[in-house]
């Protein structure tokens, strides 16, 4: 066991865990940030996607001892009031079915929009295909990313 100081959603968080604990389980079990989901544990589904210094990261594959000083953002910290353009677009387009994959989808999309504010459908697909949606909500996920990309952010994203 070891103590780690993490920067999560703008806050300093101290956790005492085994040093190989994947960030996913630190977030879920120790910080109770359960918006980040477990789907496969092997980097294949994207349900566990968070941002590490703004870049998308599969938290199931990232041991906590490799996080260091990086700033972690989870779905809970994507916007203050749940009104990131993607979160709004997700509601407007009525994307979720079971909803389980959706925070991972949104986090992947948020990183894409930060890098490429006006992505083409092709760019959207080429980025988002790493996130599985077992319910097959892909058409609306794609559309919602597009919708969000046409709107200026109302809240500054982290």
């Amino acid at each position: 066991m070891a103590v780690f100081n993490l920067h999560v959603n703008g806050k300093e968080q101290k956790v005492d865990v085994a040093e190989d604990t994947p960030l996913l389980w630190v977030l879920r079990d120790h910080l109770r940030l359960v918006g980040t989901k477990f789907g496969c544990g092997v980097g294949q589904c994207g349900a566990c996607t968070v941002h590490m210094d703004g870049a998308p990261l599969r938290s199931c594959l990232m041991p906590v001892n490799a996080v260091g000083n990086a700033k972690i953002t989870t779905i809970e910290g994507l916007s203050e009031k749940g009104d990131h353009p993607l979160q709004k677009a997700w509601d407007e387009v009525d994307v979720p079915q079971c909803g389980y994959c959706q925070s991972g989808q949104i986090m992947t999309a948020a990183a894409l929009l930060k890098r490429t504010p006006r992505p083409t459908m092709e760019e959207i697909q080429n980025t988002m295909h790493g996130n599985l949606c077992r319910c097959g909500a892909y058409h609306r996920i794609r559309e919602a990313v597009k919708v969000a990309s046409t709107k200026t952010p109302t809240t500054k994203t982290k």
Partner: protein
Amino acid sequence: MSNIRFNNSRRAFLKNISLSSGGLLLGFSFMDAEASDMPALMPKDVDVAGFNSYISIANDGIVSVFSPNPELGQNIRTSFAMVVCDELDADWNKVKVIQAPLDTTKFDRQLTGGSGAIPHSWKRLRNAGATARYLLVAAAAAKWNVPASECTTENGYVLHKASGKKAGYGELATAASKITVPGEVKLKDPKDFKLIGKPIRNVENQNIVTGKPLFGLDFYRDGMVYATIQRPPAFGQKIKSVNADEAKSMPGIIDVVTFKNNVAVVGRSTWDVLKAKKTLVVEYEAEKTLESSADHAQIFSKLMESTDAKVRRKDGDVEAAFKNAAKVIKTEYECPFVPHNPLEPMNFFAHVREDGIELVGPTQTPGAARKAVSDLLKVPEDKITVDITRLGGGFGRRLKFDYVVEAAELSSIIKKPVKVIWTREDDMGGGSYRPAVRYRFEAALDANNEIIGYKCRGVGINVENPMRQDNFPSGSIDNLLIDSVEHQSPITTGAWRAPVTNFLAFAEQSFLDEIALATGKDPVQMRLDLLKRAKEKPVGPIRYDIDRMATVIKTVAEKAQWGKKKDVFQGFSVYFSHASYVGQVCEVVMKDGKPKVQKIYAVSDCGVVINSSGALQQVMGGITDGYGTAMFGKLSFRNGEPEQKNFDRYRLIRMNEIFDIDASFVNNGIDPTGLGEPALPPTGGAVANAIFKATGVRIKKQPFIDQAPFKS
């Protein structure tokens, strides 16, 4: 044709209950009227005897609707509330939907499966909403001293136009709660529906997109411990010896316990237990045959020739028809096992205490799960509570309750509140799969190319009946034989979204295409001709509605401009499953020498569409799932052990593999007949038929990707 049963004695369903905090609480039961002796539900401070769901209207005008059925993405919570609130004329912005926990053993249908929740509840929900509205109007009329017939309702208000009086539901609620519930209420004329039929967004969207704890895996209770279970890697094995010394000594591990064929590692966090599980040294021995996929192929071939098949349906004289045939077409189709793979793996929380049991988690069948726990642990059902979390997908997997019982058993052994978590490998390797099947179809044609005889034999592994013997084309053919043979295997199987029809439809709709081509008929016209025959000269029992099926066929053919397009290859398929009808036209183009699906047109007849946004999700999701599974889905076995255990080797469809879907609805005003599954079955056949048009290659096995023209 409808097998949906509604109880007519509405009176018994409704009860006005005084709410200590003021406001109106109207209980309504989903049960049959006779069974009115159910114990209380909730809220806790109110005696709601006899009722398992309710609408409450608080004095601030907030309308709460309890939704009893598990939510797994079929959007039931939104649809249920829409139906109630439409009849109620509620202000949709003031509606809250609350998941009801499991009520009692006598609950009539608190489960999710069979696309049945809406058909079952449609009238009950409307009646409940209309009754609440009646009471509010009566309260307003009494208050204003005007006839109730002069009052109207709108968006959460009762209005008396003549005097210009207006009162919100919140301010009328307490008075309304003192009025006797009427025996009969008038339901709306469907043309006055304000919510039903509209695209209403999922009531849970905001919680989902902000990552709120909604799912079973998100549930946490102070003092709870975590557990992961090692189960036999192969079906047919049992434990011979367990060495857990290393696991027990690892940090964070509380205990390792063995029960049945399970070795459970219990600890303080998920990672602690997952890590420790890897150090277990468990020896297994074969208890039953350890089957491989190659064995199954041989078993299928053998059973295909069995003289001991179970006859599912026999019309006319099939032998004579085949003897007199001018031509016989004979083909076999095959589908492999597939896992359900809901994105949220199995998990459940259980706390077995001295005085009762608490269960919390994602289940499609809370009632059956509770009964099983009660039977195993000998605790009466009324001492067991089940709270239903949101389900991160189900697809039929969570109709089984092995994972609930297992969590309860573990809690009873360790005497602690425990959450059992399955990894993806546990989940994909854990059984209850869609069964593997093979079909043999035979058609006898006369000299005029008319079908005079039809045979279908289904052989399956733990599928019981792989046939839907009274579905189309049964009823349209004079001489017909449908039978099946089953192989019993240690590999466990279960219902998978649109059970049986999800593979049978592919095989049958492909075979009908073969017949059409062999007889020089247009596949759409041939189906319509058969339906005409079934209508004019029906043979035997017919489970489908001939006119509804004909309508979706014609409508989708017209939408897709069937047979009129030059630049695409079209394939047709239509299927009746559960109680709804879906016709599909798939369009394929050739790209780099390979067929590529470009678009699927789908026309669905599910009766009244309640939520046009949610309905589109079900159709588009169903088609995407149907295509993805037909194209890529396969679980193969080697010595009893699945060869695919995670998404690295098991391929699910991804965003870059989807195509356009044009989905529309017949919307004929018939009471709703369900939509969670029916869009899926026709897809495999539509795709295979279009691929045949494009390439001349008939795909007869799933997954398509392993067959020509994708693989040489």
